[in-house]
Every structure is written in C-alpha cells, then in structure tokens.
C-alpha cells in the first residue's frame, strides 16, 4: 500500500524538539570561527539628505571597521527583482549615499568583535539629517503632491494598463445594462511576514570562492542576484547554504542590502562575518506585504446575477520597487475570483512612498484579489437583500465547465466551488447560526452575531503558464536513496513529504531517503519555496526522477536476472525487483546499485499552474457597546487537490488561517504622517497570539489537478487568502442591521464602535 495520503509523523521533529533546529545564528562551522559581527546604522528619518561622520565610532576599541557608502569599492546597488520600473526606483543603494527614503534604510555598517560593541559603535555614528518632504500614504503619493524621485518626475512606478497587462478602465457606460451597481473602497493594510526567526546571514571566503549562510527561502535566486555583484572577486564560485530556517512567509525570498554587503565586508576584514538582526530591524527593514487600496464597482441584475466588475488597484511599493510593486499582476489575473462574470475591466498602478519597500507576503497579490471580490459580492448581496450563500451559488463558475477561462483570460484547471460552500455551510450549521443571529437581533442583545462567508480561488505554481523546480534522485551503493531538491523547507516539512514521494516510487522506507536541500553547491539548480509551489513542482520532479530511476533499475535487474525488462516488476512492499510471478528470485536496490556507475535521474520539467480553492466561514461575536470583536469559530473547506500527508497539509492550513485572521483583526504595519514607524516591535505590532484565536474546524475536500503527476495543488497560502475576507464579511454581517456596509481592516473595537455611531447618528 502506498505511503501517500497517510499522517506520517515528521522526520524533522525529534531533533527540533530535543536540541532545537540549527538556524543560521546557531551555526558552529569551523569556517565561521573568529567571525566579526556586523551591525547596520539605520536611518531614523523617512526622507532626508544625509551627511555621515563615522570617525568616532571607528576609533572605539573592539571596532574593526566602519563603512559608509563613500567607502564601498565593491557592490553599491541591489537591483529590484523585476526590471520593469524606472531605474532610480529600481536601483536601491546598499548603503544610502546622500539621501535616505525610509526609516530603517541602511546608512553605515560596523564590524566589531562582539555584537554589544557593534551596538555601541552604531550609536556613535553621527548622521546629520536635512529633512525633505515626506509622503507615506499611497493615495496621496499617487497625486504627486510630493515627488520622491525628482529625476522620474512622478511617484507612479508603473501603470499596468499602459503595459498591456490590464484591460484598462473605461467610463460608466461599462455598467450601462446593470439594474444594480455598487461601488466601494477596500484597503488592504500593510502587514509584516514576521517569521519568528529574524534575518540572519554569515559570509566568508575560501580563496576566491564566496560562501554565505543565510536564513532564506530561495538560495539559488540569491546566488543569481548576488554572484554578478562579485563577478570580479568570486572567480572560484559563489555558494549559498541555507540551514534550518525559522519561517519566511515571503519575506525571506530575496536577498536584502544587509545580505549583499557581507561578502565584501568579509573580504575587507579578511575574516568571516555574521549578522543577526533584532526584531525591531526586522520590522523596519524586511519587506512587508499587502499594502494595496482597491476601488471596485460591481453590477448585475436585481435577482442577483452578477455581470460586470471593475477593479482598480493601487499598490504601495515603498521607497524602492521590489517585488511588491509587481504583485498587482497576480491581483489582476485573479480578479474574477470564483465567479462567472462575463464583463471585467481592471487597472493597476504601483507608487513609491517613504516607507519600507514591500515584498511578497503569504499569498502575494491573491489575497488582495480575494478580499475585494468577496467584499464586493457581499455588498452587492446586501444591496439586493440576498443571502450571501445564495448569491454565491448563483454566480459560481460551475464544476462541469472546468477547465474554464475567466473574463480576464485566466484558465482555472479544476474546481467545484459550490461543493466547497455546501460542505462548509453544513459543518458550520449555517441555518442554526442565522436563527441565532435573528434571535439576538430581535432581542436587541448587546452581543451580536456575525457570519461571514468567503469562497476563494488562487493561482499556485505560477506565474502562468507554470513553473519548474529541480529534483534529483540518486541510489547510493548501500541501496538507499539521496534526493536533491531545489525547493527547501522553512517549516513546510520537506524532509517528510519529499521522502514520502520518493519512497512511494522506489519501494523504500522513508528512513532510507536522505534529502539534500538548501545548498547551491550540492543542488545544482533550483528556484525555492514560495507561492505554494514545493510539493506540486518539487514533489512532481522528485516523483518523475524516482520513476526514471526505477526504469533504469529494471533494465539492470533484467540483465542480472537474464529476463526481459518488460517482465521486471518492482515489489513496492520490500523494494526488490523480480520477474513478474517469481518474487523469490529477486534483486535488491543495493545489488542493482553495485552494477551501475551512477544510478540517478533528474527532472526540472515545467508544470502548469494549479488553482486551489475553498470556502471559509467565520463566526464572530461583536460587543455593540465596546466594539470588541471575538472570533468564535472558523470553519474552512480548502481543496488543494491530492494530499500527500494530511497532517502536514492541515498544519499549513492552520498557519495560513491564523495569518488571514490576523490581517482582518489585529495586524497592521503603520506609520505616522512623518513616516515614523508605529509598529516596529512585537509589543506595538498586533501580532496575533493564541488567546485571540479559536481552534479551527477543517473540512476535507480533494479535487486533483490534471496539471501534474501527483494531482497536488498548493496549500501554503490558502488559509491566508480565504480567512481575511471571511472574517471581514462576518464583522460587516454582524453590523448590517445597523446599516453598516463596509469596515476597514484591521477591525479594531474603535472602528466598529465608530461604524455603529455613524449609522445611529
């Protein structure tokens, strides 16, 4: 029987639970012995001209060096990942030269014998700031009332319509035929990935080879970005090693300026160097996500047939154009959500502001699409007095029609949205909940009930038409397997899932599978772990490679057994090859490996995108006197296609749901009008705790994708995509009898209280 589909306990856990994992700052490598510590001096102003004097710091005992932009004779610029933006915005200085553009930007760097000395020296670096006008709010930035880059002349980094990547916004005749038209504004506040392990990096040189260790999600991508910066010195190679990683959630996909400079610093000092940031630095300088403002208009008939939808996206890139400036692409292609809407028009712009540059955060562009369409559908339903479940049933893309193309040209592979709704409604006891809501309303109770529904669809293994991930399977002389993967774990359990996939094909025990991940020397190619891609891309490659190895092994077995290769079968139960019908005469993997110089195979095949979906139902209680909102229940039906290990998949769902709820209820990266961060530590950032969450009620559903051999879709981001609109809809639903139709996130008690007062007055 196949191991796939079983709740196999994780191979990672015994080590993690007894000694702790080995994160970058835990490394005890001989190559890092005697390392100097790196401390960055960061801007405390959002926009200013600067003059730096580091002489006092440089003279302090224990300080091995202080460097400013003027001292850099190596890399000076770290370019954004997508080269579609004006160069001044794209080319981020590694250390600010004469201008800083956000609080937290690196100005100078210190090398010291201890971290404490580094912190003291950072205090001693004197920076003269000459303030420049600041723009923090993206809608204000879009007016160009303050222009950050004079040489560009506008804050608009890109208009996706002008690039032909959106359909373009026309005029109101677009909605001409509609009986009902509803418009709204949905703000997607900036949120922090906040992996519990902050960023951490180390670097050294072995002759003319650079070696970096870092807490990162995509080491081959990092190598691709940094190696060219060291083309002169690193003639002997450039190796990135990623040990265990304490979470990423998108924020650890790219290299940052802080990482990019380490090989230079190591070369300068002639010693290894290490950097471990504080949480405050993490919240100031690691890329946050979301940060969109959407305006939508939705139109249709009085009986609830939605026919028209317009979405205008404004995205906050922060001070430089990093990945965040590009992510509206994903919002646009997923703008139709789960609905059959024949007429859609879209537009999107990204603007620069004096804030931390944005990057991907769990969902990256798709949560924004889902939140807006799910709010829009609820507002439309509210306008015509239709139940939110009924309007969804009426407008879903139908299961029988898959694969389907939406009006914006995105082709969804497979799905049954209505089924996910019915399963979730059943599990929630929907009609009982509505009865209880009515009872409380009729009695005028202080604590009211809100029920929110959201059905989402997202794109994974993207961007379209599909991605690839490297996998290699090699049989060792002992007859065991070594699996090489370009995708790597930062909590996703690759040691377990990938071993299961290989073991299933090879007829081995998972303990016989060694996984090699997170090392650009040992794994020749790779992309990384993000966008819910690992199992469907990396797993599929390992599955294919293992299948090819089995075919090669059969040929060897045929020679050894003097049989026809077509008659050779692999006995999955004990991993031996024999002629069909005579299992007692067989060859083990070790015997076969002895006959081959190299029994291995690799795969890096492009695999088409998949479109996971599901329905989330949130039940909230709202204290109408204080505005306090409590999430009572969270019921989710998430369909990620075929499931390799249900325990691990449920864990991914749980984590995503919590982050989605956090976006709705507690978390926001905020600034004052001068661009001073108001949420730069865990005491001020509303990071969600276990006291603010219920246990989650998960409903299983599996619709395999035809697009890869495993049938798997992505699951890492689903929770974060469905939960936010479900909770937002629940809060508005709970206040709808007061006349409230929309509320900004995160839903603070003040916002709820104000919304009620506004309707009362």
């Amino acid at each position, binding site marked *: 029987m196949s191991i796939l589909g079983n709740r196999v306990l994780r191979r990672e856990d015994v080590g993690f639970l007894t000694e702790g994992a080995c994160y970058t700052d835990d490394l005890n490598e001989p190559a890092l012995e005697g390392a100097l510590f790196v401390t960055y001096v960061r801007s405390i102003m959002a926009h200013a001209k600067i003059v730096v004097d580091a002489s006092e710091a440089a003279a302090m005992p224990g300080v091995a060096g202080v460097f400013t932009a003027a001292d850099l004779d190596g890399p000076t610029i770290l370019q954004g990942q997508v080269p579609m933006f004006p160069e001044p915005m794209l080319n981020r200085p590694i250390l600010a030269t004469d201008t800083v553009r956000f609080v937290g930007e690196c100005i100078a760097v210190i090398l010291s014998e201890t971290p404490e000395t580094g912190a003291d020296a950072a205090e001693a670096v004197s920076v003269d700031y000459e303030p420049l006008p600041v723009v923090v709010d993206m809608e204000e930035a879009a007016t160009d009332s303050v222009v950050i880059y004079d040489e560009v002349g506008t804050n608009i980094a890109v208009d996706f319509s002008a690039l032909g990547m959106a359909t373009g916004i026309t005029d109101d005749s677009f909605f001409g035929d509609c009986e009902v038209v509803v418009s709204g504004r949905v703000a997607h506040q900036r949120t922090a990935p906040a992996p519990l392990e902050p960023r951490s990096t180390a670097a050294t040189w072995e002759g003319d080879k650079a070696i970096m260790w870092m807490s990162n999600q995509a080491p081959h991508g990092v190598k691709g970005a940094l190696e060219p910066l060291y083309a002169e010195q690193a003639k002997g190679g450039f190796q990135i090693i990623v040990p265990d990683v304490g979470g990423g959630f998108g924020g650890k996909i790219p290299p940052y300026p802080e990482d990019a400079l380490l090989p230079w610093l190591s070369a300068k000092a002639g010693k290894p160097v290490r950097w471990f940031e504080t949480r405050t630095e993490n919240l100031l300088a690691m890329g946050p996500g979301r940060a969109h403002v959407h305006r939508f208009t939705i139109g249709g008939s009085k009986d609830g047939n939605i026919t028209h939808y317009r979405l205008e996206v404004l995205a906050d890139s922060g001070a430089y154009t990093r990945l965040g400036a590009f992510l509206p692409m994903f919002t646009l292609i997923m703008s139709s959500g789960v609905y059959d809407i024949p007429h859609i028009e879209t537009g999107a712009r990204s603007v620069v502001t004096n804030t931390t540059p944005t990057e991907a955060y769990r969902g990256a562009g798709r949560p924004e699409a889902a939140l807006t369409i799910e709010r829009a559908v609820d507002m439309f339903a509210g306008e015509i007095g239709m139940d939110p479940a009924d309007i969804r049933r009426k407008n879903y893309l139908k299961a029988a029609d898959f694969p389907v193309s939406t009006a914006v040209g995105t082709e969804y592979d497979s799905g049954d949205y209505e089924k996910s709704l019915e399963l979730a409604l059943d599990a929630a006891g929907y009609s009982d909940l509505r009865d209880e809501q009515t009872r409380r309303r009729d009695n005028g109770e202080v604590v009211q009930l809100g029920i929110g529904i959201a059905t989402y669809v997202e794109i994974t293994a993207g961007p379209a038409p599909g991605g690839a991930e490297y996998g290699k399977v090699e049989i060792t002389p002992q007859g065991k397997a070594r699996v090489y993967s370009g995708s790597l774990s930062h909590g996703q359990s690759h040691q377990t899932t990938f071993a299961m996939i290989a073991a299933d094909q090879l007829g081995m025990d998972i303990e016989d599978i060694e996984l090699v991940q997170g090392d650009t020397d040992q794994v020749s190619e790779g992309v990384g772990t993000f966008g819910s891609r690992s199992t469907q891309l990396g797993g599929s490659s390992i599955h294919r490679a293992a299948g090819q190895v089995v075919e090669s092994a059969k040929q060897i077995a045929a020679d050894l057994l003097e049989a026809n290769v077509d008659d050779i079968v692999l006995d999955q139960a004990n991993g031996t090859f024999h002629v069909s019908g005579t299992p007692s005469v067989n060859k083990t993997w070790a015997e076969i490996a002895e006959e081959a110089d190299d029994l291995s195979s690799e795969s890096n095949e492009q695999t088409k995108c998949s479109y996971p979906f599901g329905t989330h139902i949130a039940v909230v209680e709202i204290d109408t006197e204080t505005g306090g909102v409590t999430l009572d229940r969270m019921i989710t039906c998430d369909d990620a296609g075929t499931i390799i290990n249900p325990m691990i998949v449920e864990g991914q769902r749980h984590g995503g749901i919590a982050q989605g709820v956090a976006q709705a209820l507690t978390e926001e990266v905020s600034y004052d009008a001068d661009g001073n961060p108001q949420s730069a530590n865990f*005491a001020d950032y509303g990071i969600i705790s276990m006291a603010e969450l219920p246990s989650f009620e998960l409903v299983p559903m599996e619709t395999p994708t035809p697009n890869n051999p495993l049938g798997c879709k992505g699951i890492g981001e689903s929770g974060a995509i469905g939960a936010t609109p479900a909770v937002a809809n629940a809060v508005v639903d709970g206040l709808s009898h007061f006349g409230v139709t929309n509320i900004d996130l995160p839903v603070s008690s003040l916002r709820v209280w104000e919304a009620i007062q506004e309707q009362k007055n």
Partner: protein
Amino acid sequence: MTINGTEVSSDVEPRTLLVHFIREQASLKGTNIGCDSSSCGACTIHLNGESVKSCTVLAAQADGQEVTTIEGLADGETLHPMQEAFRECHALQCGYCTPGMVMAAISLLDEVPNPTELEVREGLEGNLCRCTGYHNIVKAVLQASGSQS
C-alpha cells in the same frame, strides 16, 4: 549556575542576558531569540523549575541557580511527554518557537494540571508562533495534560 545539571561558569559583562549566556557561554543553541521587547517567548527556559523568558533575566541574576533548557528535557532517547505530544500533534513547523513553547507549556501544566482549552490559550498567550496558527500547539498541550477526550 547549573544548566541541565551541568555546572557552567564564566565571567561575563554585567549587561549579559541569560539567553546570551545560555547560547554563547554554555553553547546551547536550542533556546532562541525572537524579539527585543520580551513579547515572543522563544527564549523561555526554566529557572529553578519555573518558566521565565531568559531575555528578561541577566545572566548574573541566575548566578548559583538551576537552569533547564529544551536540551535538558528528554531522558536519553525517551522524549518528555510534552515533547512527545508536540511530535504526535504536529505542533511545530519551523521549530523556532518550539523550545520556548515546550518549556512554557510544561510550566503551565505544573500550575494547572488539567487546563481547559481557554486556560491553555490564556496561559501561553506570551509565546508566539508564526507557523502553526496555534491549533496543534493547544491540542498537544491538552493531550499532554491527559484532559484531551
């Protein structure tokens, strides 16, 4: 001080935090640092049998005391019941919060042997996890307490 039953002594700066002492002087890297505002609990250890956030204690304050970290819990190959429950319930993903979470959870059960779900959630509120959504952590603590039906 003794850490996991072994005497560890070293001269350190007065400002050295206990968490740094454990990681650097005792070379025990299981205890993690996740914040600079004593908010996350990743650094939770036992000081004389009670859980504390070791980033809020000076090493000097622990002079002569008994410290237990995640490395001191298992008995040879045999996991502590809380470690076992975490493993069985998939209560860890990246593992960064885990050592602190396990230490805090053991302490919670010392104080409240049979907690309700709400008591677990309120009792461990000061330990953050970014990966698990807390669902399986709560399940593991309840399982370890034997109060899971």
